[in-house]
């Protein structure tokens, strides 16, 4: 019998096989295409192809005023558009040299954390679905639906919200919204326990993720990874702690950090982040200060709509800002913010006119997609799917 097997193994020659995974493949979370060279089940070479969703956001942004380019940022990472808006307005405010009022900063922190939970929850659902668990996906989507309903209550839109504005937020939040959100905040930890019961100590889940896609701390930093993908390797770099913006310096939260840098640790980090996001929301709601939600800088921020219809002065400001844009000094700023995927940076070069001379988007998904060959090569083809899930990419942001 053994002799026979030996004979078979000797005569059985494997040939390198090329497989094109995607762009239409449910596990690639959009339109990512990977060309895999396989030796049996082992991945010898992995080449990602991106750009299927390229819309030229940077070029479009250079031809719009700072206010009109805000909706473009919604379309970057379309499952957490609120965080992109917050990143965009923070960068523009830094360039303009203005600051949002206290209440607006708290509101932005609340909605950004809502966006973080809604993004992480869809990551959790789809990641475990790719690896074979259907149940957490269904439970997770139910909670995401609640958050989207809350967004709708807040600003009328569910996905592409465009709620934050340069210098504040579009409208104040109502008491009903706060009550509904507080109810969600109180209930959410028990839902997290449900997901964790299903996944964290699951034998199959651990078999599929522990020791898969390992990357060391030094290497992860050298690759430019950020967000949960970096913190899984044990580096505590979080823009919210390192460069506090909005109200993050006034709330108490921890940054979960992994140890081994594998898929499982990155999973633990993101799950921990959801609990921390919930904590931040709770603190912000409890300490929400009173006051205006737009800063008082009439030449740099859009005036309130009701005053525009009544008052000549505001009408003129509105007209100038919409048609010509604000007048700002020449210069350049880079501002990074922590979005669910990692560090989203906006780099503006201003030439003194109302339109950005150069608008650059530093997209975390773009960097994370580039590390995919490093994580996948040498592993099994089934682990490629686990790796795509664990780096948490959205192709709308990657391709811009």
């Amino acid at each position, binding site marked *: 019998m053994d002799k026979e097997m030996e004979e078979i193994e000797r005569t059985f020659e494997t040939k390198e096989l090329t497989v094109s995974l995607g762009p239409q493949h449910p596990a690639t979370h959009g339109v990512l295409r990977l060309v895999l060279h396989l030796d049996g089940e082992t991945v010898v070479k992995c080449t990602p192809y991106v750009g299927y969703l390229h819309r030229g956001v940077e070029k479009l942004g250079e031809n719009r005023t700072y206010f009109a380019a805000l909706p473009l940022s919604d379309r970057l990472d379309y499952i957490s558009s609120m965080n992109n808006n917050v990143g965009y307005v923070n960068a523009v405010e830094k360039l303009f040299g203005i600051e949002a009022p206290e209440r607006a900063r708290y509101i932005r922190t609340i909605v950004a954390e809502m966006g973080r939970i809604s993004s992480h929850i869809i990551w959790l659902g789809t990641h475990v679905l790719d690896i074979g668990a259907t149940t957490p996906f269904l439970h997770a989507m139910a909670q995401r639906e609640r958050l989207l309903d809350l967004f709708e209550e807040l600003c009328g839109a569910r996905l592409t919200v465009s709620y934050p504005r340069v210098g504040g937020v579009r409208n104040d939040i109502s008491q009903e919204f706060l009550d509904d959100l507080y109810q969600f905040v109180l209930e959410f930890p028990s839902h997290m326990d449900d997901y964790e019961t299903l996944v964290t100590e699951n034998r199959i889940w651990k078999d599929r993720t522990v020791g898969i896609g390992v990357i060391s701390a030094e290497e992860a930093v050298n690759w430019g990874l950020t967000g949960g993908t970096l913190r899984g390797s044990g580096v505590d770099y979080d823009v919210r702690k390192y460069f506090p913006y909005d109200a993050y310096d006034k709330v108490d939260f921890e940054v979960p950090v992994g140890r081994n840098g594998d898929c499982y640790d990155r999973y633990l980090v993101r799950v921990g982040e959801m609990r921390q996001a919930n904590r931040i929301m709770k603190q912000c709601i409890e300490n929400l200060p009173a006051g205006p939600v737009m800063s008082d800088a009439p030449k740099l921020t859009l005036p309130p709509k009701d005053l525009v219809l009544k008052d000549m002065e505001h009408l003129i400001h509105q007209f100038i800002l919409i048609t010509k844009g604000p007048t700002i000094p020449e210069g350049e700023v880079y501002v990074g913010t922590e979005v669910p995927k990692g560090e989203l940076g906006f780099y503006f070069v201003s030439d003194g006119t109302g339109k950005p001379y150069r608008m650059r988007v530093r997209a975390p998904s773009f*960097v994370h997609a580039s590390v995919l060959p490093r994580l996948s090569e040498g592993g099994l083809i089934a682990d490629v799917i686990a790796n795509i899930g664990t780096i948490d990419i959205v192709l709308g942001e990657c391709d811009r």
Partner: protein
Amino acid sequence: MEALQIAEKIKEKFPEETLDFREFRGQVSVTLKKGRILDICRYLHDDPDLFLDYLVDVCGCDYLGKKDVRFEVIYHLYSIRHRHAIRLKAEVPDSDPSIDSVMPVWVGANWHERECYDLFGIVFKGHPDLRRILLPEDWEGHPLRKDYPVKGPEKEWPGFLEVLDKAKRYREFEWHG
């Protein structure tokens, strides 16, 4: 370390390479010649006091008609250990749009440089795999240059015409149930 101190240090170490530095809103950018960019980056990465280990971003910028030197390649660097940041700007002339790749120092520069090549046409010497990344291989022109029309090229990309043609040919198989 303060960003201005880092800028001074670069100027001290590479006096002939450093052209200018400017502060705006608390952020410092150092303008450099492109010739020894790799040496400068290696120094910034390896020096224990600076240790700028995290390459945040690489991007290009086209100053057509605004500055004497048309292009700039912009590097945003950050040190996670020391928590300081600096921005480097290397001038790249239109006549020879090329610069050394910084991939030997930071692997993460790989796709950023490919993107910069794709959208600005700046060639990164020493890059192992310099292909277009966001646009198709047979695309003509570099869209983020200021002389490229916002509405796109006059001539449609051949790949798209192919798709249209295919759609027309397959129309007879449409299901009219």
